């Protein structure tokens, strides 16, 4: 009997160790597949505001708790898409400088992502860039992280179906979405990726940024599986290629005179 108890205790300890190595006490969520914005459930949208996904109330949304400077900054930006887009004179840093969109802005682009789980981290690959993020499992944030484009992410699994990602250490150079919502270096982003059906993934986000907003606020994204293949074409941002597009299609449409 004693041997049985000892064996059982050892087995439990081993299982706990394995689970810890896999990112916490919950078993890993199966997030396999190539995920793209779900065009049947909101698509990409323009804004993270749940009440204004199309960006029509930019700067005046009821569900974004702006600090005064953040509202003024939003209203001062010129967007490249959306109801008031002026892509000939946009201030979107991703368009004019080809800077990384960061997160969550990358989820407002028509690109797929793929989760690559390992024992030490989940690698999140994006067709845009192509960029990738590292979600460290069983890890802690540095005490004083250097501010960077994608911040520092740690993660764990919950309930066997959810990956929770906690990110700090962002720089303040990216927009949160296409509508120019700013953030500060104090942003603390919580992402919860949950597969709700074999073909559907949902992302709940909490944006906690005491440097830009008066309280934490939430947003949501829907994704669907794609079977068309991952990274069949590299979605690379080039200032030169962007300029060609502005010259060919943008400037004529913005100008007051017909194109010659």
């Amino acid at each position: 009997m004693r041997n049985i108890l000892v064996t059982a205790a050892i087995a439990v300890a081993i299982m706990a160790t394995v689970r810890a190595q896999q990112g916490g006490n919950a078993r890993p969520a199966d997030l396999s597949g190539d995920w793209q914005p779900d065009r049947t459930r909101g698509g990409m949208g323009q804004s993270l505001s749940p009440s204004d996904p199309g960006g029509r109330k930019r700067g005046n949304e009821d569900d974004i708790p702006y600090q005064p400077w953040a509202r003024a900054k939003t209203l001062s930006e010129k967007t490249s898409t959306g109801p008031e887009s002026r892509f000939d004179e946009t201030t979107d840093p991703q368009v004019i400088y080809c800077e990384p969109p960061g997160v969550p802005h990358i989820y407002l682009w028509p690109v797929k992502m793929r989760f690559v789980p390992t024992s030490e981290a989940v690698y999140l690959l994006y067709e845009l860039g192509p960029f990738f993020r590292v979600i460290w499992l069983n890890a802690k944030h540095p005490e004083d992280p250097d501010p960077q484009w994608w911040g520092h992410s740690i993660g764990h699994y919950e309930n066997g179906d959810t990956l929770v990602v906690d990110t700090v250490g962002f720089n303040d150079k990216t927009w949160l979405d296409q509508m120019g919502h700013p953030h500060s270096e104090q942003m603390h982003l919580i992402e919860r990726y949950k597969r709700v059906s074999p073909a559907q993934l949902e992302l709940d986000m909490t944006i906690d940024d005491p440097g830009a907003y008066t309280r934490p606020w939430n947003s949501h994204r829907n994704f669907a599986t794609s079977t068309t293949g991952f990274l069949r074409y590299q979605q690379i941002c080039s200032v030169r290629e962007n300029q060609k597009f502005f010259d060919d299609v943008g400037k004529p449409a913005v100008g007051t005179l017909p194109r010659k």
Partner: protein
Amino acid sequence: MKNVTRVLLMTVAVAVGVVPASRRLSAHHGANLYDMTKAVMLKGTIAKFYWGNPHNEVTVDVKDEKGNVAQWVAYTEPPLVMLERGWTRKSMTIGDEVTIYIFAARNGSTVGTLNRIVLKDGKELTAYPMPGTPAPPAPAK
């Protein structure tokens, strides 16, 4: 009447009527610059085809009844997205006669957002859907 018919066949025709305001969310540039309420039909020949980021561009020479040629440029989403809709970098052949449906610039410029294109062999390739309509299904890999 004959002239009207010629105009309809040879040059620009409003192909689709006004549709209800869109609830669909699209991230393309300049919904305020291009008239997304109607797709204009144009018949012409492929002059250029740019396959690349940030957007593909289809350039079509459109001849009016007097023989004057206007060059139209219609853009699509990037190759990454268009591959899913069955497009490839070899989808267009320079000189082929095609029919395009375009959300044209509001200011009268001969540029716009491509809705769809009917190729010489009758094959139709879709691009930006009409606002308010479901996106076309992606073909399997």
